[in-house]
């Protein structure tokens, strides 16, 4: 944000602006940028998901639109979905029904402001950055509940109830898994977390100590559940609940859910990258030419891992999901915090 403000000041026409004006303009530019990135990542990742699923399943996936491997398929789908009729069921709670996709989208959009793309390049350099991300993304669950309730559809209600239970539960291991890292860094600022990992792959938190390694995988599993993707796609479970909470949604409103899902997917992958996988630092020290690019590439690799898991594993049942959360992941993440803390003390990292 500071960099952006500085940049804007240098531009002709912006020089005479007040600080407040600059801030608002900068925020607007940043918000537009973030939304564009989000929409773009939804488009890129739907295409990528189809191709990954396709090749995993011995087929090609989209091949027609746009000649080369159907690269324009997702664009075409987006255009199609925008052109679709917007149906609101007659018995639906109209206000909530309309508002729900916006809440979901807002929840995932808000969390993006604290993502550290490159040194100094972050929309809002908050002292409680990581905390803010988790807090903002938990808004999604309200949107899902609203959508399920407002649809006046029993399947949607089931999906919403499952989704709420799942997402509220999985926020705990998700946050707990990052605590060892926070202990190492001593800060919740996202920039600080990345800076603490400077100096090659061995300084990334995932490889600092065995407990952090376990914590990373705990974070990874919890993040899949948090984004409602297979094998933890309880709110949707297309073979049980038809389409879950968005059964009744069409057109633009469905697109919002869709957008939010992929934006969330990329977001949790980026969090994994900057918390555990060294953020913008390249694996070999000294090769940090394009920090933002390194960051995004790592994020895409995490997304690929996510997709790979999704297209391999069967779905767990809703009570097993809760079992996994409360009886496996929370104890293990707590163990990681304790273990990592003990290692820190014994190695003299903290006095």
């Amino acid at each position, binding site marked *: 944000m500071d960099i952006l403000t500085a940049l804007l000041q240098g531009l002709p026409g912006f020089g005479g602006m007040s600080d407040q004006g600059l801030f608002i303009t900068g925020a607007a530019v940043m918000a537009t940028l973030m939304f564009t990135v989000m929409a773009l990542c939804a488009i890129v990742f739907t295409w990528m998901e189809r191709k990954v699923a396709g090749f995993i399943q011995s087929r090609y996936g989209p091949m027609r639109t746009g000649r080369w491997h159907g690269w324009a398929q997702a664009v075409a789908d987006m255009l199609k979905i925008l052109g679709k009729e917007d149906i609101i069921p007659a018995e639906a709670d109209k206000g909530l029904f309309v508002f729900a996709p916006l809440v979901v989208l807002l929840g995932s959009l808000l969390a993006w402001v604290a993502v550290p793309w490159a040194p100094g390049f972050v929309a809002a350099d908050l002292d409680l950055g990581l905390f803010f991300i988790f807090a903002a993304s938990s808004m999604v669950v309200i949107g899902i509940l609203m959508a399920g309730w407002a649809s006046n559809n029993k399947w949607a209600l089931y999906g919403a109830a499952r989704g709420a239970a799942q997402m509220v539960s999985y926020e705990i291991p998700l946050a707990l898994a990052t605590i060892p890292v926070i202990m190492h860094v001593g800060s919740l600022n996202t920039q600080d977390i990345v800076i603490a990992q400077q100096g090659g792959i061995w300084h990334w938190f995932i490889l600092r100590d065995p407990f952090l390694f376990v914590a990373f995988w705990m974070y990874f599993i919890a993040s899949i559940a948090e984004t409602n993707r297979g094998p933890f796609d309880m709110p949707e*479970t297309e073979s049980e609940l038809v389409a879950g909470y968005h059964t009744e949604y069409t057109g633009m409103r469905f697109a919002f859910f869709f957008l939010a899902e992929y934006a969330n997917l990329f977001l949790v992958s980026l969090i994994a990258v900057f918390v555990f996988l060294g953020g913008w630092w390249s694996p070999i020290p000294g090769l940090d030419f394009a920090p933002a690019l390194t960051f995004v590439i790592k994020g895409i690799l995490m997304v690929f891992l996510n997709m790979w898991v999704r297209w*391999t*594993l069967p779905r767990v049942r809703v009570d097993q999901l809760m079992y996994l959360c409360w009886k496996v992941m929370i104890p293990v993440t707590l163990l990681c915090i304790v273990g990592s803390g003990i290692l820190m003390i014994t190695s003299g990292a903290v006095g």
Partner: protein
Amino acid sequence: MSTGELKKGGWADQDHVPGIKSELLELNMGPQHPATHGVLRLLLKTDGEIVYQVTPVLGYLHRCAEKIAEGVNYKQWVVYTDRFDYLAPMCCNHAYVTAVEKLMEVEVPRRAEHLRVVTAELSRIASHLIALATFGLDMGAWTPLLYCFREREEILNLLERISGGRMLYNYMVPGGVRYDVPNDGWVESVLEFITMLENKKIKDYNDLLTYNKIFIERTADVGVIDEATAKAYGCTGPVLRGSGVKFDCRRDDSYSIYDKFDFEIPVGMGEQGTVGDCWDRYIVRVREIEQSCRIIRQALESLPDGSVQAIDLIKPVKVPVGAAYSRTESAKGELGHYIISDGGQTAFRNKVRSPSFCNLQVVEKVGVGQMVSDLVALVGSLDIVLGEIDR
């Protein structure tokens, strides 16, 4: 919680808040639902995730096949048998021609019998592959679906080469089969395919799905059909064998030339949970694929020479007066035809006892007390085909 307790009253029947009466939620699962394998409708009464009552509603795919049987002749009706279990039409053809031949008391040429066995077993493999695939899909595993369809495609190609049809073959006629083996190395292709299936592909399925911990958790101890229930409800095929009953029409009530072949009857043993759970029914199908491969190999290696038709194809089939119930082991279970002939070219009555119809009935009993997700697993593990249920 046992079924009895659930029926008596759960959370829903109690008066939690004074003045507010809570009820069970009525839920229509189907006829348009991803997990009902067609147009089955299950009327559920649920309390949260727990199912209190399951009522299957059938008939969305009813095509009056038994009425049509009274209007067309025996050869023409072979075409309709294809449409019962459209995932294993060769088995359906086989069941029907066996029934007609039982009444006609005609001797079928040995070569034709071998070809019938080979094609019916290929069809059975194809059907079991679909069963694995869709069961995996019900459990949320997408990728095995495509892998199984890939192998099924090979089978369809093989059957297309011998019969000309891709999905609906109309291959068998009373008194033999319609065509001999094509002279383009068909036998070698079949052997090559089953070798590949046995050695490589089944291992892939096992790695990907069968022994996956999540899959086991989802299916073991779920939807347990005990032996007594299975017999009382007339369950047959993999459902009955999954409950630990070693019964297979091919062996125990032998028809065609199945008694000449050496194969085993896999039964559910409760390896991952209880005998008769969904996982047992699933693994019985996987092992039956291996046994079918064995039968095909034996049948092809001992393929005799000679004609493939006992009756001239051009002549209409006339069946002497009488009535007979003939049962065969189709991919889904015991497929029986009860034919009453009046001595003419058309059956007076042709009742079809379809395995899926009888197997599905058990849902009414076993589905109670399950979670909604487990009901999906149960229906998936029964491997029903609506074309056969509604006829």
